[in-house]
């Protein structure tokens, strides 16, 4: 719904923008506008279309339909540099820095100061110092390589780099997620200054208190559609949450069994790692499906990787079936009965050019071998069983796994791990990019495995799925578990409220993180 009041003074106007990725709708008929001298927050759940929206504005992807007007002129941006040239600058979540180049090099990468046609290193360094000073981060030495900086400093460099392009429209996509609270204050001050200079600012953040503190206006997106735009103070936090949830076609989930008090199969105590896991304690009983919820990137993936032995320098205690384990590699984790369906099935889950059969047995070769040789008869038998158990739709087992659809590929990953008879199954967003039918099969299978005694830890970005599948859901925020929900408490409002950490609570861990 276009807002007539906006379009007159708008700096950037989008009308009727739609975008599909491989048939999946990302944005549908979006009308949107933002003004100079205003901070405009863009809100929405995971997958609501926010990132597609800013990618279109910043020239990273092109819309299928619709028009974009900037400062009264029709524009199309074929590349990010075309957008930059028009004054549209985006600070992306995934950093756009070159790790081997110095801070000064990175800040001036697009148009370095030159003398006699060559890059003037001294001027470039001064420029870096000025820009870093402008956001109050003089402590970063421009000579340092970006590779050698901690994540929070890299983000500062990214912001300085964007400022150096003299933006007319500045987009911040979760640009403060890795910053320390002291730096966040400095960035706020910088945004206020830019706002006073008449720069239009689009601010994407999952931190509600940030949005409340900063934004003059907010737009809510849901399922690829623009739902509503309102001025600061016109909507309560509860209203906003309700707008973000909306209602959707319900998916069918298998019934949850009555819960007893299962003995813990996996118990995690005080687990910490680097900056992304902060004293996590959690237990998963045999026969239980425990969900990991919260916004993307709050440490859920690191937790799964830590349990699977991928991370080094993990502190805390992990017990499997009452015995303490300390897996140092995925192979070691496998040997104590842990399986992980990883985040990216194309690179970490499967060997795409290899056959379906090879992929299926690759994690359980020991079980079908006699000495060093793979027993062909047992292999064939195992492959047949795996395909039948998950009802994987294939041509021939010898086909490359790359030829399968996403859903069937994911089934192959799961079948591969089931062949190892795992006691603990870790799932990292296994239904992402999978059709509804296959999703339901996976839900049923998860419940079946739990009923057979497996402990399942299930991370998903889809709240609906967490509610439908899980016996309990632990919500993570900033590397901590902020709340565990079960029974009637387990509903969307509670999940989103905890995920956004609206109460700003730092329960059970006094002095944590942003102290």
């Amino acid at each position: 719904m276009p807002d007539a009041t906006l379009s007159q003074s708008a700096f950037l106007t989008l009308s009727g923008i739609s975008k599909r990725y491989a048939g999946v709708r990302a944005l549908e008929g979006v009308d949107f506008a933002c003004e100079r001298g205003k901070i405009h927050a863009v809100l929405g759940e995971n997958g609501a279309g926010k990132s597609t929206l800013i990618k279109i504005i910043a020239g990273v992807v092109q819309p299928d339909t619709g028009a974009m007007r900037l400062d009264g002129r029709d524009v199309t941006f074929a590349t990010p540099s075309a957008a930059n040239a028009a004054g549209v600058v985006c600070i992306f979540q995934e950093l756009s820095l070159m790790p081997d180049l110095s801070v000064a090099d990175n800040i001036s990468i697009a148009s370095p100061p030159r003398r006699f046609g060559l890059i003037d290193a001294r001027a470039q360094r001064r420029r870096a110092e000025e820009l870093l000073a402008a956001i109050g981060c003089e402590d970063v030495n421009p000579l340092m390589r970006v590779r050698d900086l901690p994540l929070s400093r890299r983000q500062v460099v990214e912001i300085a780099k964007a400022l150096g392009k003299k933006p007319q429209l500045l987009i911040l996509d979760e640009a403060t997620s890795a910053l320390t609270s002291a730096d966040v204050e400095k960035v706020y001050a910088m945004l206020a200054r830019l706002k006073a200079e008449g720069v239009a600012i689009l601010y994407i953040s999952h931190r509600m208190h940030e949005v409340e503190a900063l934004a003059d206006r907010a737009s809510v997106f849901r399922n690829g559609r623009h739902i509503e735009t309102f001025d600061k103070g016109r909507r309560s936090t509860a209203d906003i949450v309700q707008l973000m949830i909306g209602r959707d076609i319900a998916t069918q989930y298998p019934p949850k069994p009555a819960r007893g008090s299962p003995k813990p199969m996996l118990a995690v105590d005080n687990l910490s790692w680097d900056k992304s896991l902060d004293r996590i304690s959690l237990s998963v009983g045999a026969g239980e499906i425990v969900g990991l919820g919260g916004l993307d990137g709050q440490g859920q993936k690191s937790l799964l990787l830590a349990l699977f032995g991928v991370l080094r320098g993990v502190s805390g205690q992990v017990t499997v079936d009452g015995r303490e384990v300390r897996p140092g590699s995925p192979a070691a984790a496998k040997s104590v009965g842990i399986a992980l369906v990883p985040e990216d099935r194309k690179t970490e889950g499967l060997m795409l050019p290899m056959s379906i059969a090879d992929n299926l047995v690759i994690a359980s070769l020991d079980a079908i071998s006699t000495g060093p040789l793979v027993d062909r008869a047992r292999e064939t038998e195992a492959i047949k069983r795996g395909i039948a158990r998950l009802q994987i739709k294939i041509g021939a087992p010898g086909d490359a796994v790359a030829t399968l659809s996403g859903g069937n590929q994911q089934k192959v990953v799961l079948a591969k791990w089931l062949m190892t008879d795992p006691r603990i199954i870790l799932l990292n967003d296994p239904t992402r990019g999978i059709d509804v039918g296959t999703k339901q099969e996976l839900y049923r299978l998860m419940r079946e495995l739990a009923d057979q005694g497996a402990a399942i830890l299930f991370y998903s970005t889809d709240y609906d799925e967490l509610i439908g599948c899980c016996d309990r859901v632990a919500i993570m925020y900033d590397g901590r578990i902020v709340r565990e929900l079960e029974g009637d408490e387990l509903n969307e409002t509670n999940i989103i409220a905890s995920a956004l950490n609206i109460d700003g609570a730092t329960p059970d861990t006094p002095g944590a993180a942003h102290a």
Partner: protein
Amino acid sequence: MLDDVAIRIRQNIGIVTAVLLFSILYLLYNLAHPKGFSSAVLVQNGDEIFALAMLAMAQTVPVLASGLDLSVGAVMTMVGCFASYLLTGAAGGAALHLDIFGLHLGLGTFPGGVSGILLGIVICLAIGALAGFVNGCVVVYGRIQPIIATLATGAIYIGIALFLRPTPGGKIDEDLNWALTNSLGDFAATVHIFDDGAAQWFAPVAWIPVPFVLLVLIALLVWVPFRRSVIGRAVYAVGSAEGAAYMSGLPIERAKIAAFTLAGFFAGCGGLFLAIQTSSGNADIPQAGAYTLNSIASVVIGGTSLLGGTGSAIGSIFGAMILRVISFFFRIFDIAPLLQPLFEGLILLAAVSIGALGVLRVKNTLELFR
């Protein structure tokens, strides 16, 4: 400011290590050599080092952009074969002709004398750069991985070299040979400057080998400006994170083509010198292969990461010199030359191991595979 120096040293630790290692090895060599610390020894070493040093520089540029150029040895050989026709220096010029498919085509007379030699040098270097440019275009527009693209083009360049010189032969102007492969004093005497090199002020520098001066000149006049140009910066950026380079609006394709073109130019310099040094053109296939492999070794020893993005051609020069000095040792200590590859291999392994120490600090082991 002391901080800045420390940062620079830490960031260039590979090059610093290579320089130190070379200095120690070369000092030991001169101490052990009966005629150590003499101009004659320096000149001989300079001649032996130059071509490999140029190929090491050549290899560095594509490696910085995360590519590998397997054709540098072939480009060197091809340019050398061209040089053996164009740099004869014959007073009346040289008649060029092409025998192909049974046809005999006269190509006119290539000028002789000094101007002819200078023109020939320019043409030879241009041929090297052109070969590199072709490599770049195949990689960028053909979307073929550099390693396989240059394997193919390298075979083509060797083919051209064989066509030009089925058997070793040709001729290089003797004065040119003498002037470039000896000391500055000999150079001055040959081209009749500075009172034929006898000028009083000239004496303190007359002992310096010409190849050494050429190396410094090429590094200062070609490499340093390139490193500080926008396109050179883009080469580093592409090797460091191509996606980020794209998102920053850098000319990625131009950077890659430039990297291969510059590689061709450097390889051409090496080929030209080798031809001048040996006074002939020789389409020597094993030699081309050995030079290519040694250029990669030099790059690694010189502190450049094969993953791209970090390192410098200056480091590679020292890498090449280290490889060569090791072989000098075999001569003076009278050790069986058959052991040379073994020791070179050990040195390479040690150098690579130092570079791999960073792996121990990675906290997310999954990152090792990305």
